[in-house]
């Protein structure tokens, strides 16, 4: 945790309300995100108990599993969820746009929009990931057939869960993560995982402090937990009798309908408060203007969505249980690159995030006191435009001479540190030599070189393109990594071997 973020937490304690740690929104927010609030049965391996699902606050569909231990009912739940989720996903496959590739020599197409799933917390993401894992290998034929939509749902849920690991992706978001990215509360990170308490700090009811609202929200009797785990007290006193009543009424259709209605009402009671919180969270996030680079990252989500939709259309198989050595290395490399670029982009988009880098000396802000925009370096074979500027800053400058810096407002330009001179009052004079981002001529276009009096920020963080690493083909996996895979990925072996009960 940066000192800046920790200070915001301390300020939140004193102020009694959460403090902003971002001035812009760092994630994409869909016009109609699909909110999923799942509940699971305690003790079981990801057995769904119920869910509220919908893409608008007044459009919540309640799914109920009256006997969560029953496998057929589990897959009936998956089929019902598939009905909602797959049609939501398909709704984003109408319009495409052309994207130039290979320096404009070719084009590819991608969807102009992509689906977005929102769940209350990271445990909700895990729930969807495991639901995807438990359904994607199922088959509509054979010994234990499931509805055809079930394995397809599994593959899409797996797609979303994998995107959720990708730093900067907005395809599947946990509301608690989304909110703590923008606000610091006066409680710990563990407590921030509880959505009702977190929103208590960010948006306390009138007349209450954040701490009071959070304490109130922690009482499961006043506010049900945001799932997927249920409150044990609720399980023991209300849910268990309701499930038993439903099971006991097996032979009596009328009693069974009554028992089902009771169960439905119970689960709705548990889910509805979280549903409200989810949309309150969406509203709070919408109140922030999006960061400049959010749209670019969302384009990455749209690319991934297009690619997966095409893979499914082309009859490609489900995602393997585990990546092979090469696939794992490629994935890790991709995630690392995304993480680096996401951190840089957030700093470029948001002065409050950049402030954390200024505090550690990776960036500084100062005023341009001298500028020579027409300076030409003619020591080489041909003369090149190399303007110089002098920046005076009061902040500590911890970069070495010769370092290459970048400025968020001129991302295409490099600035080499030529001189560092301590000046009066603890100030530092930094002379920078600029290259790039000024066209090909020997005169810099207006605005491409900072002018005297301009306030500028320079940083060691670079948003320049990171080249992808080179990896061998799977059949050329080196022996150090287990050698080439001996068998094809276990597409069929897995599900058949997985017992039904």
């Amino acid at each position: 945790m940066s000192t800046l973020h920790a200070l915001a937490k301390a300020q939140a304690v004193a102020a009694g309300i959460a403090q902003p740690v971002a001035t812009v929104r760092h994630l994409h927010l869909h016009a109609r995100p699909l909110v999923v609030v799942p509940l699971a049965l305690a003790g079981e391996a990801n057995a769904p108990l119920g869910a509220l699902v919908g893409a608008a606050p007044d459009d919540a569909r309640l799914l109920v599993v009256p006997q969560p231990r029953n496998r057929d009912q589990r897959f009936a739940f998956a089929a019902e969820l598939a009905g909602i989720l797959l049609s939501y996903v398909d709704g984003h496959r109408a319009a495409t746009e052309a994207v130039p590739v290979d320096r404009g020599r070719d084009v590819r197409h991608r969807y102009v929009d992509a689906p977005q799933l929102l769940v209350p917390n990271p445990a909700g993401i895990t729930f969807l990931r495991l639901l995807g894992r438990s359904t994607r290998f199922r088959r509509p034929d054979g010994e234990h057939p499931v509805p055809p939509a079930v394995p397809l749902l599994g593959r899409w849920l797996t797609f979303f869960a994998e995107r959720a690991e990708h730093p900067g992706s907005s395809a599947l978001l946990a509301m608690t993560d989304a909110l703590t990215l923008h606000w610091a509360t006066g409680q710990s990170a563990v407590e921030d995982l509880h959505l009702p308490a977190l929103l208590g700090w960010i948006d306390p009811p009138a007349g209450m402090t954040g701490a009071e609202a959070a304490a109130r929200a922690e009482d499961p009797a006043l506010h049900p937990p945001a799932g997927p785990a249920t409150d044990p007290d609720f399980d023991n006193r209300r849910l268990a009798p309701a499930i038993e009543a439903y099971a006991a009424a097996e032979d009596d259709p009328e009693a069974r309908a009554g028992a089902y209605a009771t169960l439905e009402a119970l689960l709705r009671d548990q889910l509805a408060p979280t549903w409200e919180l989810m949309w309150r969270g969406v509203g709070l996030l919408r109140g922030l203007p999006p960061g400049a680079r959010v749209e670019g990252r969302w384009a990455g989500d749209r690319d991934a969505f297009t690619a997966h939709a095409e893979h499914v259309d082309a009859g490609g198989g489900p995602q393997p249980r585990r990546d092979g050595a090469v696939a794992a290395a490629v994935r890790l490399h991709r995630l690392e690159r995304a993480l680096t670029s996401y951190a840089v982009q957030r700093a470029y988009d948001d002065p409050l995030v950049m402030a954390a880098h200024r505090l550690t000396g990776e960036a500084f802000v100062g005023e341009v006191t001298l500028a020579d925009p027409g300076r030409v370096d003619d020591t080489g074979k041909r003369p090149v435009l190399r303007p110089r500027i002098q920046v005076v800053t009061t902040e500590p400058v911890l970069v070495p001479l010769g370092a290459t810096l970048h400025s968020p407002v001129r991302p295409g330009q490099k600035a080499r540190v030529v001189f560092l001179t301590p000046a009066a009052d603890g100030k530092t004079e930094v002379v920078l030599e600029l290259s790039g981002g000024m066209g090909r001529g020997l005169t810099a276009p207006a605005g491409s070189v900072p002018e005297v009096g301009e306030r500028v920020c320079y940083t060691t963080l670079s948003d320049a393109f990171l080249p992808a690493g080179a990896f061998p083909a799977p059949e050329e996996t080196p022996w150090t990594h287990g050698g080439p895979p001996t068998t094809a990925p276990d597409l069929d072996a897995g599900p058949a071997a997985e017992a039904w009960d």
Partner: protein
Amino acid sequence: MTSSEERLAAIRGGVPARRHNARTIAALTGNPGCARRAVLDGAGVDKPKLAERIGFPARFGQSRFAISRGNAFEAQVKADGGVALLRLVAERLGVEPGDRADWTDLGADDDLPERHARSRELLTAAAPTGVEQPAALFDHPLLSLEVAGRRVHLEPDLVAARLAGRYHVVEIKSFPVIDGQADPAKVSAAATQSAVYVLALRELLAAAGHDPELVSHEVVLICPRDFANRPVASLLDVRRQLLVLRRQLRRMARLDDLLAAVPEDFTADLTAEPATLATALATVEARYAPECLASCELAYFCRHEARGHTAALGRPAREALGGLATVPEVLSLAAGGDAVEPEQAEAAALLRAAARLRADALGVPA
């Protein structure tokens, strides 16, 4: 009765000490620096009741569904007299299961001392002598451990398996292992609990003059595999947990030192007035961290007390704030106040810079 024991009894208010089990002993390793917890646990105070009495009830309910699922899975794994269990364990350890195995259930008797004596007798008699011995399984042995000067009986849901010349603790848990991975928090809790059993089993053998190393530090964890009920065995190395546990038990054995720092009139007598109890508790220092919420029954009280302290924000936040203890201190330094202690000067400069940068970025006056 020693004076320490008298004092501990007085702290409890005359009621018998609360019984420990592997779970509570495992929980002791959570926050070893907390004196309040060490004293209360050492005295065997009923912490859940105490927390409730002072108005900060703990929330450690267990769902019926989880309990019945756990029992059902355990029953299923042991259903055939341990044949399948033995094969599973042997396969995981990479040894031959052998053609026969003895299965002894030590859980039948209700009388604890008697059961303990029987467990000790049989487990000692069956101590491994070599690989050629046939496999033997002991279900529900009653073990014991010295905690804060008292013998504590442990009723583990475990099987002690003698296999290939060693005892292995076999623990059956009902959380799933999906594609070779399980919930890390649950695995680590299981490892700590198993370490308690390994330690108790080792002490039992050592007391009878056997080599304690005959009990393996590798615990076999049996869990349902993927989304079905088929069991799968995994190995857990609990050496690290054993170290932590030993250290903490030694510390509790030296309760005298801790008690010396506790005021004479300190009480956790449940019949006392809540206000008296709260005042008394405040006299024994706690070391609250947000992690306590998951393991200590008194955590909500301590959290309330720690309000305004940086520790309540979590260790990373406290460290990022230069280790300063309280929020007012932090804010005063950030606002340009003078550092009281010279070693706070660095933190003060950092906080001042942070406050200036925050104000600058948010466009508000610093």
